[in-house]
């Protein structure tokens, strides 16, 4: 099967030259010299022999093996077949050359055995070529697979860790804690009751978020409670600039749902939608269960977004998470709200606990 191995020819030839070429060259020279003694041939014949083997190997590699590698990286049998064919081709080529240069009189020293010796010699070289190419390549392909798999694994692990960290960070952002504590402290002078309510909200929020970060799955109702306490905290700070309503039917509240999937969307709506707008605005959240699909809609009347706005950092995180949780069965849609602001619609399958 083809699982996305990228093989680049420049890499292969560099490895070929650097790692194996000296051995290969040495071996061919040895064969050529022993062949010369057997045939009592000349230095020129040895040189020609060496040159032919080198050129043949490279042409073979470049024309046959490389394209095979690039287009069909994991077809072992196809590769073996091509290599055997190239060995046969090599032996035929040598025979033709020999006949040309020596006129069939080259092997004088071995009498009746000369053709057998010559055949063994050629077979030897041929087998070596095949062996060399095959080993080199196997090694390269398996190295490459291992390398890419390792990279993939590390990447995955990193992603899981990152998303976990981001979750944690989202909850205990110092900015948020400072602002909330400042608000509580200053309310204490003017409106002690309000300060108390806010403190309770803050505790509820911290509690819920810590529990939620630890547990992977909670319920729709718990997520809604978390969002409510988050919004209430902002309500104190933003005053009449923030209005919100949450519409969740009772029967939907008990459905299991991944933790912290919706809260970052609400956070986005406040941070990028309502806070930067002079008059603030309205957030409307609704949850419905339709044909086994849980559908969240988070709409704000804030400043809206543009193609370059940073709005998306939290959102693309959520998209990634829903994808890894549900794959194709989920969807996250971000669109313009009418008359202003952003609407996010998240659909996830209702997974019954077995």
């Amino acid at each position, binding site marked *: 099967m083809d699982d*996305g*191995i990228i093989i680049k020819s420049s890499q292969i030839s560099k490895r070929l030259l650097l790692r194996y070429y000296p051995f290969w060259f040495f071996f061919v020279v040895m064969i050529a010299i022993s062949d010369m003694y057997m045939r009592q041939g000349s230095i020129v014949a040895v040189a020609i022999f060496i040159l032919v083997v080198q050129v043949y190997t490279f042409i073979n590699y470049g024309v046959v093996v490389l394209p095979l590698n*690039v287009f069909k990286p994991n077809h072992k049998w196809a590769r073996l077949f091509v290599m055997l064919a190239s060995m046969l081709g090599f032996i035929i080529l040598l025979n033709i050359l020999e006949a040309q240069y020596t006129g069939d009189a080259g092997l004088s020293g071995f009498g009746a055995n000369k053709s057998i010796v010559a055949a063994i010699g050629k077979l030897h070289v041929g087998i070596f070529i095949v062996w060399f190419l095959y080993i080199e390549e196997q090694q390269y392909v398996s190295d490459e697979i291992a390398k890419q798999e390792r990279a993939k694994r590390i990447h995955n692990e990193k992603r899981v860790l990152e998303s976990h960290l981001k979750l944690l960070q989202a909850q205990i952002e110092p900015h948020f804690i400072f602002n909330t504590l400042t608000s509580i402290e200053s309310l204490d*002078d003017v409106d002690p009751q309000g300060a108390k309510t806010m403190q309770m909200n803050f505790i509820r929020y911290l509690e819920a978020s810590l529990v939620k970060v630890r547990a992977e799955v909670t319920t729709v109702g718990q997520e809604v409670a978390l969002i409510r306490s988050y919004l209430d905290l902002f309500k104190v700070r933003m005053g009449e600039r923030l209005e919100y309503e949450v519409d969740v039917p009772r029967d939907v509240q008990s459905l299991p749902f991944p933790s912290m999937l919706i809260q970052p969307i609400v956070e986005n709506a406040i941070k990028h939608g309502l806070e930067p707008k002079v008059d603030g605005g309205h957030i409307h959240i609704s949850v419905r269960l339709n044909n086994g699909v849980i559908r969240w809609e988070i709409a704000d009347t804030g400043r809206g977004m543009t193609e370059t706005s940073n709005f998306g950092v939290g*959102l693309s995180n959520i998209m990634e998470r829903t994808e890894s949780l549900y794959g194709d069965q989920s969807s996250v849609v971000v669109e313009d709200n009418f008359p202003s602001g952003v609407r996010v619609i998240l659909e996830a399958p209702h997974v019954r606990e077995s």
Partner: protein
Amino acid sequence: MSGKANAIVAIIADDEKPSRSHLKSRLLSVWPDLSICAEAKNGIEAKSMIETLNPDIAFLDIKMPGLTGIEVARETAGHCTIVFVTAYDEFAVAAFENEAVDYILKPATVERLEKTVKRIKARLGDEAAPREMSEIFERLMAKMAKDAPSRYLRWIKAQINGSVRFVPVEKILYFKANQGYTSVFTEKSEMLIKKTIAELSDELDPGLFFRIHRGTIVNAKYIDSVSDASAGRHLVRLRGRSEIHRVSRSYAYLMKRM
């Protein structure tokens, strides 16, 4: 100093009411003579208050809707002494270092506030010339601008089923020119947008998207295999896709970068 006719007059600008009242009560506790004549809820209000009320000092929150504290300061440079107020944020603090401006870190503790007030009192009156101040604010704005939205596209805006939808660029596999428009391909869908390939290639992050052909931009993250087997001709295939994209010779250098 109490009882003096010309008491120091200040305004406070912050979009959050609790923040305003907090700063006000803290300021008055360390500087009882200070007269806070008005509070602004946003940058636009702050600007008009500075211009009409002519306070001696303006305490400006950095992050405000309408205009940021720094924008207000720049537009009213020379009117009064500016003290910035900023929430815990390493970047903002780093921006203030080495600049001749005062700032208060939120939430303001009495000790820190006392120091700042002392400095403000000492400096009050011998403020730099307005032009110099506006240059300082200009510089601050430039430093803060690094925080602004990226200059590359993060979203592609497309009309789908009657609504304007935003698709994150990370989800896009490739763009293909389509009779003056551009077809956008994600794993699940195909959309048509009005931008041309040339426009997109200017607006997309060149580190993430490769323009491999006059009419094709691919997401580098999705490149599955590149072949350069046949005489310098590169072909690109994307993950999970059967289409083969040709790389024109003039963009072939992109492949060498990989």
